[in-house]
């Protein structure tokens, strides 16, 4: 009796310690990143760091605006490509496709989520980059980055959107059909609006994945630290630059990369916060209806 009580108590403590450790790790990462970032911010100045247009560590110039612009442009471009495609695919899987097709398509999409980003990068380098080069420029470019990222975030958007379309209560759909709406009208006017919060959350999650992607971007974007002048010119992103230069950086350069991580960290916290808020609002709305 006593032994069981002890086991019960101690396992509870153990779990508590595990949960606490997770928090400690998170806090440690945050604290250390900020700490290592400070010297660079102090040396360069926050304004010059965030809005400086020249990143040239060998001359002591640490402006990260080109990388911020690069991250935003590539991520937005990928969303423009992937969102319509992804939602279309989700509708197909949830509503249109016969059971047989769905049985194949759904696991295939889920498999795509698990492919490591370096593989996407490699395929992009071998297939997308030469295709872009045939149109204009060196191939390693914003356009190649957008295409590769779009393919990478597509599965996230498809699987979460499909789930949220399926989660719409059957009565909604049946009611619409009973009122004489066509299947398409039902999808467009009833299902999609009801599933809106889940769909938006899938897009925001895809966005988070896109903005944090480093490996694939190093391989297809060219990593030139300048604001891209066209779709066919090279660019660089925050995550890509950190991954590319961290191994050989020292001193202020290293600290500047940490400061870049802080910017990326904050960006992703904001994006994930938005996603969480949307999902919570969505579930509450569904609870009321």
């Amino acid at each position, binding site marked *: 009796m006593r032994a069981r009580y002890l086991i019960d108590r101690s396992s509870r403590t153990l779990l508590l310690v595990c949960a606490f450790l997770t928090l400690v790790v998170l806090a440690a990462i945050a604290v250390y990143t900020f700490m290592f970032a400070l010297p660079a911010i102090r040396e360069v100045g926050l304004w010059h760091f965030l809005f400086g247009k020249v990143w040239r560590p060998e001359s002591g110039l640490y402006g990260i605006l080109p990388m911020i612009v690069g991250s935003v442009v590539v991520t937005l471009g990928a969303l423009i490509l992937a969102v319509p495609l992804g939602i279309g695919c989700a509708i197909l899987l949830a509503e249109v496709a016969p059971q047989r097709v769905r049985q194949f398509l759904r696991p295939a999409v889920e498999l795509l989520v698990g492919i490591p980003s370096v593989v996407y990068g490699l395929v992009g380098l071998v297939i997308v980059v030469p295709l872009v080069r045939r149109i204009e420029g060196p191939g390693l470019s914003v356009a190649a980055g957008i295409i590769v990222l779009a393919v990478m975030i597509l599965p996230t958007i498809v699987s979460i959107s499909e789930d949220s379309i399926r989660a719409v209560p059957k009565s909604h759909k049946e009611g619409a059909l009973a009122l004489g709406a066509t299947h398409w009208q039902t999808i467009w006017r009833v299902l999609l609006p009801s599933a809106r919060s889940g769909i938006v959350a899938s897009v925001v999650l895809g966005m988070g994945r896109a903005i944090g992607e480093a490996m694939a971007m190093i391989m297809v974007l060219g990593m030139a630290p300048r604001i891209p002048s066209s779709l066919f*010119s090279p660019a660089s992103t925050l995550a890509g630059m950190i991954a590319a230069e961290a191994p050989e950086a020292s001193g202020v350069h290293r600290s500047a990369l940490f400061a870049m991580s802080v910017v990326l960290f904050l960006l992703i916290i904001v994006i994930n916060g938005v996603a969480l808020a949307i999902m919570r609002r969505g579930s509450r709305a569904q609870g009321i209806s």
Partner: protein
Amino acid sequence: MSIRPSRSWIILVLAGVLALSLVLVGCGKQLSGSVSVGGSTTVQPLAQALADAFQQKHTDVGITVAGGGTAAGIKGANEGTFDIGAASRDLTTGDPALVTHLLAKDGIGIITSPGNPVTGLTKAQVVSIFSGAITNWRDVGGPNHAIDVFVRESGSGTRTAFQELVMGSENITSSALQQTSSGGIRQAVAGDPNAIGFESLAYLDSSIKALDIDGVPATQETAKDGTYPIVRPLYFLTKEQPTGLVKDFIDFCQSVEGQQIVEDNGYIAVK
């Protein structure tokens, strides 16, 4: 209670082993132990070849060779992560004070894809291309096509050496495409007919072409006799004056036998 006899027994054995190893070391034949080498990716294949040869002679010795880049080599040697750091450039005032051991020299080749009709450039033209003043192959006797400039990332030893030896006070253009390894540069330049890049002469293969600089072909011979203008030193770094096994290994690398391995791997011997 039984602890005491067994412990003294262990001490006895240990003392015996120690005495035996002292005798063996005294004989100077049986080297054993381990050495860690790490740093510049340019030095890495050479360090590995030297380590392999050394370990073949002394089978009880383990030498691990890691990459990580020149900065990692300097940092590792200074902090003790590596017994020996590897660097592909001169140490500067910003670096910690370390003992340098000149290992070899290495030419930096200016490379293009084999299909490029341009076969040579002047050093001034190279500076203009990498600084972004010349952006079309037409201006240096090639086809009318934009030049895709490939460079290593900031902080790379090869990039730093290229900056010092070629660019001087000129800045590398921010439009330059960056690759994070010598292999990446070679692959990118091989696959892009309009590309130009730079990498160690020891890394050259048939997938790319090294340009003549100021009329001098980029080969091991011209780099060795001093006519090829872009040559940099490769160093082993230690925190203190080396002793024991570390010293034995560095001595081996600088010996006639070691320097032959340097030559065999496409680098320039220094002794």
